[in-house]
């Protein structure tokens, strides 16, 4: 049996770990709330721009932007991957990477080449070990992700698409379903899905473009993709915080259980030591008599 002193230090060390995990849980909970607010705040813009894009798909523009054209033969696929910067958030990143590894395997089997743009430290360190072509990376996004810092990463991919280097652009991130569930998702960004517009060919119309169709559409579509990526980053942030909160909560609970078990062993050992001491004294006294 371990000595009481050893047990005492062990319990103390687990207690300090528990203090840290419970603090992290609380921090994650408050950060999650803020991340959720940010997620909701950026939603109106995303919804409105989606509506405009939908209108655009219904119009009959003379000018077809490259983002709206499908390539006949896709040889190369672009993939934007959003992960967290830090670990200790359960299986959040692992689940996403596992899904991606499977998907990328399927693509490779089809003979497609893959370019990836990475957001977040975890994705950077994971995909560096794999043999994939990393075209852009960004880590240390921070708790309040800013639009500007992401633009570089997005631009690399958009340019590659406009030049015809990649025939498809996808985004992968963890969707925030609720505080308890986060779902890894992969969505197609480009080519833009024109949607179902069969019913709407009742009459023929097109926008008046100011200054020119090319310029306006270029700005609009870029903004659209940027807003989708931003939404993905913000959502992934909320997912990260939620996952961390849950992971830290279970770590705190586990530490509590461990402490209870060790305390039991410790008390038994202490009791045994006392009993032994008494019996020693009694037998000593008996020997004197």
């Amino acid at each position, binding site marked *: 049996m371990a000595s009481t002193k050893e047990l005492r230090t062990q319990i103390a060390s687990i207690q300090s770990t528990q203090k840290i995990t419970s603090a992290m849980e609380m921090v994650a909970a408050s950060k999650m709330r803020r991340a959720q607010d940010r997620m909701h*705040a*950026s939603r*109106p*813009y995303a919804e*409105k*721009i989606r*509506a*405009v894009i939908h*209108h*655009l798909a219904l*119009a009959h523009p003379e000018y077809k932007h490259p983002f709206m054209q499908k390539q006949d033969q896709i040889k190369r696929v672009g993939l934007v991957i959003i992960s967290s910067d830090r670990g200790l958030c359960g299986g959040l990143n692992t689940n996403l990477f596992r899904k991606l590894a499977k998907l990328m395997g399927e693509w490779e089997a089809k003979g497609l080449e893959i370019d990836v743009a990475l957001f977040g430290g975890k994705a950077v360190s994971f995909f560096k070990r794999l043999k994939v072509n990393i075209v852009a990376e960004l880590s240390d996004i921070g708790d309040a992700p800013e*639009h500007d810092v992401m633009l570089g990463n997005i631009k690399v991919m958009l340019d590659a698409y406009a030049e015809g280097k990649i025939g498809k652009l996808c985004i992968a991130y963890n969707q925030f379903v609720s505080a308890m569930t986060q779902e890894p998702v992969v969505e197609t960004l480009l080519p833009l899905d024109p949607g179902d517009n069969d019913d709407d060919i009742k009459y023929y*119309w*097109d*926008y*008046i*473009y*100011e*200054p020119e169709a090319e*310029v*306006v*559409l270029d*700005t*609009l579509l870029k*903004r659209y993709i940027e*807003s989708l990526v*931003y939404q993905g980053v913000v959502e992934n942030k909320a997912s990260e915080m939620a996952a961390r909160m849950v992971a830290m909560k279970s770590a705190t609970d586990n530490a509590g259980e461990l402490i209870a078990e060790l305390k039991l062993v410790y008390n038994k050992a202490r009791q045994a030591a006392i009993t032994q001491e008494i019996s020693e004294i009694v037998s000593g006294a008996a020997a004197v008599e």
Partner: protein
Amino acid sequence: MAMTIHVDIVSAEKAIFSGKAEMVYAETVSGEVGIAPRHTQLIAQMRPGEVRLHNEGKQDEMFWVSGGILEVQPHQITVLADTAERADDLDEARAKEAIERAEKAMADKKSSIDFAKAQAELAEAMAQLRVIDKLRKIKK
């Protein structure tokens, strides 16, 4: 009652305004436009400046946008602003400061990129001040 058109103003960070107006004025890159209900479809790039909503018998509502996209459908106007504020929330002192800063940056231009950035900042701050001035005149 006069005809109205539904207007939504959103910026990347939040929804700024959603409501009806009889006439909407906005600044596009090629000049100011006035849009009445049942206007034909229009999609335009905006420059830094004001968006003004006019309703008969009410004070005009003013917003400041730093640029973005204006989409017009016959019964709906959507302003997708990069950043937007209600004109009442604009801070004159801060706008003036921004102008000074931008002018300084332009004076000691190091590279053409910095210069372009400073110029854009200057245009934004000037537009803010214009909106504040206008708002003040209306209130008097």
